[in-house]
């Protein structure tokens, strides 16, 4: 019992330490995305799961998940992201000729833009990645501080231990 308790305590400390590192805003290098692309995709993800009374895709670090996915198991989707972003930018310029980026649009305009592309394969791909990054295991870079799991009340205990 003593052993179990101290092991659990250690895990808790490890988790606290990890969240502290994230909260300190230590900049991360992008693996695949340019910082401009990351900003644009993050703006889309933040409309799919917005931040309101509770944390959303942005706080969960979904964009880090997407960058990781494109660097690893979804590397074959890189081109689809680049082409899709281009399509979204074209659409943005049609709807809002004076705008300069998705990220700098107002929230309402971002929603108008996404509504106009919500049946495209690109939107579906970003939506799926956003959900995966929000609700997947934190070791993929998203769901930081278990943001997504806290929202839906999900708890995981692997082998009886809390998730790292």
């Amino acid at each position: 019992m003593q052993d179990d308790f101290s092991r659990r305590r250690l895990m808790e400390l490890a988790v606290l330490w990890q969240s502290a590192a994230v909260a300190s805003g230590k900049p991360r290098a992008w693996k695949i995305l340019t910082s401009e692309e990351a900003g644009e995709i993050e703006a889309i993800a933040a409309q799919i799961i917005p931040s309101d009374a509770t944390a959303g895709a942005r706080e969960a670090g979904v964009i880090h998940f997407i960058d990781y996915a494109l660097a690893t198991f979804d590397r074959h989707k890189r081109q689809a992201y680049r082409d899709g972003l281009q399509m979204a930018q074209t659409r943005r310029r049609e709807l809002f000729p004076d705008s300069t980026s998705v990220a700098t649009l107002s929230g309402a305009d971002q929603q108008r833009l996404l509504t106009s592309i919500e049946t495209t394969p690109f939107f579906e791909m970003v939506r799926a990645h956003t959900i995966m990054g929000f609700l997947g295991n934190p070791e993929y870079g998203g769901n930081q501080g278990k943001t997504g799991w806290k929202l839906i009340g999900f708890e995981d205990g692997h082998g009886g231990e809390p998730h790292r």
Partner: protein
Amino acid sequence: MTARFRPADIVDFVVIGAGAAGGVVAKELSTAGFKVVVLEQGSYLREKDFTHDEIKFMLQGHIINDWKRQPNTFRKTEADKAVQQPAVLYGRQVGGGSVHFTANFWRFHEVDFEERTRWGSIPGASLEDWPIRYADLEPYYTKAEQELGVSGLAGSSPFDPPRSQPYPLPPLPVKPSGVLFERATKKLGLHPFPAPMAIISKPYRGRGACNQCSFCKSFGCEIRAKSSTLATVIPIAERTGRCEIRADCYVRRIETRRDGRVTGAVYFDRQGKEVFQRARAVVVCANGAETPRLLLLSKSNQFPQGLANSSGLVGRNFLVDTGVSVGAMFEQPLNDHKGVHVSRVIHDYYDSDSKRGFFGGGGIDARFDWYPITFALWSFPRHLPRWGAGFKSALAEYFPRSMSLLAHSTCLAVESNRIDLDPDVKDAWGLPALRMTYKNHPDDLKVLRFLRDRCQEILDAAGAKKTWGGGVEDFTFSGHLMGTCRMGNDPKKSVVDRNHRAHDVPNLFLVDGSSFVTSGRQQPTCTIQALAYRAADLIAQAARKGEIA
């Protein structure tokens, strides 16, 4: 102590597939004193590999067949050209589907073995009795429950078939979905009972009890509480020193010699090199889809239609996992994601009833078998927003408050429904891809709609705030693979005899879902494993009499 044989060694048995059936056969034959090599196409994973990673196990299919390297093709009828799409799903590592299954472990009922006698012939279906009866299998159901470790409560269902012994372990804890289901079904005059599960509720034979971690379906159990063959019988087989589990071996053909007997199996090893393992007899436990495919891949001068296929029935009468799910959301949180997926079942609608006007019946269980990502991506109610603030709040509301009822039902055998070889598409090893031709018998869909309506009644009685799902259409995909090498007494109307021996080949045995004559009401693993215990017993007897060498 694990045996290592050389391919040139003539072992007693090559077993193809280390899954639910193959694991049992390997254990039974090796403990009976025979030398066994088990060829498994997947890897030898251990408990440390079974993480709770939904992306890896659910989305990337880490422990199932790989449709990129092993493409399937599908068509509805023989007149159509098949198109490439996933059609069959099975476990692909040592332990096979018994590693990732939900672990529902129902026995078939007596009626399942004699429905042709009971109901007569059904137009458009090849409904037949099994050549064995429930009583023939009962001792082996008991053996499977005792050896593997099954939790349940004997006598709790008035519809249960007779049993010679109670379950070795008490039922697992009831879940919120089970409580709501039990209350509602009792209100409707039905008979809920604790779900029989191949998950141990107490420590058993050196394994620890389930800790209700929630990761059953599609995941391996990291604490060995799920009674997979990997956690139970395979270690016993290896300890005999007479059984080698050879993983990462993709069998491409079974060899035959001029007298029509089989001599072993040729497989591609990890490096893609062809290896011939010699044996006195071959037991194919490759599942209801890959077993017929392998027989068709093994055609030779003596067997131009494919091995053991003089009847032309290899691959035919394919049976799929017909089922329908109705989701429900309640006012209060259920947090039903916690724990083993299923805790209560009814069998009130199990039997056919001529008053309904169609053949078939089924069971209904209460469950929550979703995980966060796949709930949001695949199981999210269609009437809700798909993104934005409305999506987020619905996600937070629905995940902790949802459950579902799953009805699983009869699937009638139809001769034109089949597994065979695609004429054009090849797998990564250059072998013809598995082609599925399938269209449900109309009664399959009628029974599903009937059960869907019963699910709705139960959820209404339970006080569900919202329900969704329940769509019924022709099946194009299956994870329960049955019926393709049916057993029977007449060599013209079946592929194996009542002892699982191929009618055409005296030293070839087929032991898995392919032997099924009817589908039962799904949940086939218990019956696959009972058949495997019985078959291994009969094969060992035949070998001792010198009948197979």
